[in-house]
């Protein structure tokens, strides 16, 4: 849907509400990322709120007392929330709405750490820049709202640079012979482009291999380019670069995907959509028709500045307005990324918009799940490997593989698989395990003969609860552990449990009993 009408540029909030933005300590963030991604949010929220930032870990109570905010918003950059102070249910303690804003990719291994931290802080809405988060966060999906990147006028604008670069290939994945499978489309187009046009290439800077083409230098380089390529990666998400290119008065060339269409991008109207087979032809046409290219570039430039500015990102303010007057029995949904949020009955089947279903990664996971459900275990494992190759640190393929191992009679393989996910969670700062991950890990330990260890661990984390975990704990002699509200799980997804986690556990137990009674594997 085109972002016009209801949401075409002005905030919907009449009175500016007070926002306490708990940024936490941002000093560990890479300077280039802080400049290009973090600071714009801190400043952009000022269009909609009276913002007070809080960095110190110990001053939350005093800050709430002083500011008397209408909304408490925690911030997470690429990992878990940066707030490192005491953890408690802020909604219960302060009696105000509590939300989180994260710049994390949904395929990040830090995802579970982020959600469990947010859950314990009483966060009821997570605003994400990743437009594929809902497909990737299991039981948290209804709490996820999209608030995509917006134009950063400080580093991306028309600097008046002369156009000297015909084709720019910026970022990772433009090596057709590399090992990077995160960007299958980039791999497919890069070789042909290099054969046909002078190209400028620059990898994404990292902490280990930084370079100087960041900040304004990056914006100026895009401004010097006629065409610059982007895409949505293997998950077809809306990327910051999708705005940086047109905002630098450069023509964006991309793979078409649902996210770009939802955000109003149209082929030859404000950008260029190409496939690997027509990329060279369309680029050549535009380079040979500079007037047409200039007009297209100008339209893209105006489009993103008018429709994808910080002022257009009204989602958090909209959510707060709805939340403050939300009657009992209603919940808030986001039917479209750029359309208005609205309140619907709790039992309504309406869910937030899903955008990445046709991406290679999501299709791969769906294919793996569907093959397993039809008994094609080897086909399932092959599909898992394909998905894992695209995003090697992502938890979902690892979890499905471990679950398959557990169900197919390889508990030691399952222990390995679940432990690898737990290690990733620990590495990225998780203070509690995911309830389903923990439950099936305990089960795998028990079945691999490590019952004593499983029983000891079953007593740990009493504040992590879930019907499946409760069931497993009871079978390990820890029936009294838990009993609080069930924690959502990032793995509560039809990819893993087509019916429900509880049904999966029951079927797993039935299979064992059948085997024990000589019935053979199901």
């Amino acid at each position: 849907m085109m972002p016009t009408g209801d949401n075409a540029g002005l905030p919907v909030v009449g009175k500016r509400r007070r926002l306490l933005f708990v940024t936490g300590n941002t000093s560990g963030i890479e300077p280039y990322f802080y400049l290009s991604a973090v600071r714009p949010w801190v400043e952009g929220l000022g269009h909609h709120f009276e913002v007070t930032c809080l960095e110190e870990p110990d001053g939350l109570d005093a800050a709430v007392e002083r500011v008397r905010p209408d909304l408490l918003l925690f911030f997470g950059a690429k990992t878990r929330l940066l707030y490192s102070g005491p953890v408690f249910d802020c909604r219960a303690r302060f009696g105000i709405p509590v939300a989180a804003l994260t710049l994390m990719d949904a395929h990040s291994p830090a995802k579970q750490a982020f959600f469990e931290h947010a859950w314990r802080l009483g966060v009821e809405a997570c605003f994400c820049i990743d437009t594929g988060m809902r497909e990737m966060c299991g039981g948290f999906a209804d709490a996820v709202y999209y608030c995509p990147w917006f134009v950063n006028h400080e580093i991306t604008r028309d600097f008046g640079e002369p156009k000297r670069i015909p084709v720019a290939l910026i970022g990772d994945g433009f090596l057709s012979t590399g090992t990077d499978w995160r960007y299958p489309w980039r791999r497919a187009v890069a070789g042909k482009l290099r054969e046909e046009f002078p190209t400028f290439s620059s990898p994404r800077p990292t902490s280990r291999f930084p370079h100087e083409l960041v900040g304004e230098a990056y914006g100026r380089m895009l401004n010097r380019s006629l065409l610059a390529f982007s895409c949505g990666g293997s998950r077809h998400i809306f990327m910051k670069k999708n705005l940086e290119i047109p905002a630098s008065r450069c023509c964006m060339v991309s793979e078409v995907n649902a996210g770009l269409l939802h955000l109003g991008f149209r082929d030859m109207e404000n950008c260029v959509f190409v496939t690997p087979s027509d990329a060279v032809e369309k680029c050549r046409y535009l380079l040979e028709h500079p007037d047409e290219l200039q007009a297209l570039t100008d339209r893209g430039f105006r489009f993103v500045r008018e429709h994808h500015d910080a002022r257009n990102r009204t989602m958090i303010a909209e959510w707060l307005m709805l939340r403050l007057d939300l009657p009992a029995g209603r919940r808030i949904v986001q039917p479209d990324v750029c359309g208005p949020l609205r309140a619907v009955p709790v039992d309504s089947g309406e869910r937030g918009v899903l955008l990445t279903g046709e991406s290679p990664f999501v299709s791969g996971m769906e294919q793996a799940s569907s093959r397993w459900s039809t008994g094609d275990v080897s086909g399932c494992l092959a599909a898992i490997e394909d998905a894992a190759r695209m995003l090697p640190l992502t938890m979902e393929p690892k979890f499905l593989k471990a679950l398959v191992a557990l169900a197919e009679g390889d508990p030691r393989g399952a222990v390995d698989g679940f432990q690898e996910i737990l290690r990733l969670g620990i590495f990225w700062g998780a203070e509690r395990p995911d309830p389903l991950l923990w439950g099936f890990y305990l089960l795998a330990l028990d079945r691999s003969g490590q019952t004593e260890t499983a029983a000891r661990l079953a007593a740990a984390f009493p504040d992590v609860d879930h019907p499946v975990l409760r069931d497993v704990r009871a079978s390990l002699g820890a029936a009294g552990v838990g009993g609080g509200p069930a924690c959502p799980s990032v793995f509560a997804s039809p990819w893993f449990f087509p019916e429900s986690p509880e049904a999966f556990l029951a079927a797993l137990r039935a299979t064992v009993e059948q085997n024990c009674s000589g019935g053979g594997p199901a």
Partner: protein
Amino acid sequence: MGAALAAACPEARLHLDAVTPLKVSGSGSVGAYDPLIGIWTEIMAGGAHLVHGKSALDLAHCFPKSAVVMVLGDPLWRAMESFRNVRKSADHPLHAEVEAQGFTTAREFYRSPVSVPLRNRQCRKLARIAEGQELPPDRLFERARSLVEAMVVWIGFEGITSGPQPVLGKVIRDLGVGSGTPDLVPFSPPKAVPDPETAETIREANSADHRLWEFARERMGNP
């Protein structure tokens, strides 16, 4: 220092010398229980814990609320000690090369590219640069410095009389994992003091460690 602390403070709850927690992919086990998960479970069970040992710094990176107490070695002394170890230990990876080249002085060794793996070791450890990976000294120092600023709450200095005992004693008492001041043996400087030219050569080869030393001392008020 970890072993000394373990001996001085047996109540310290977690000793980590045997744990290598951070291989986040490919655990290499075959269904065996992972001790890192036990450590994590114990730490998250509540209360404060004092951990030490070779893996303590790695583990601190896993836990955002960790406060690191660091004792920094004098880079000049550490570099001389490293060269002495290479010559003394036949199984040191650089021993054969040093013998083949006939290096008998630290100056010769640190002038040679053979010494690269042993340069700036403290910065490398802090910045968690793996064996075989290199960063230019400026970037190495910046990375180590940012980690010190983010995580380290107190720094002790080799050879400085207000050594680590008092602060470690306070940490141990505050955490409730022990009651006394650990009876640690302070570091002592090497017996042979390098001549000015050798000192300068070592300083150039270990410029990141020297900057870290100066930065840390300034941060702690130039003790």
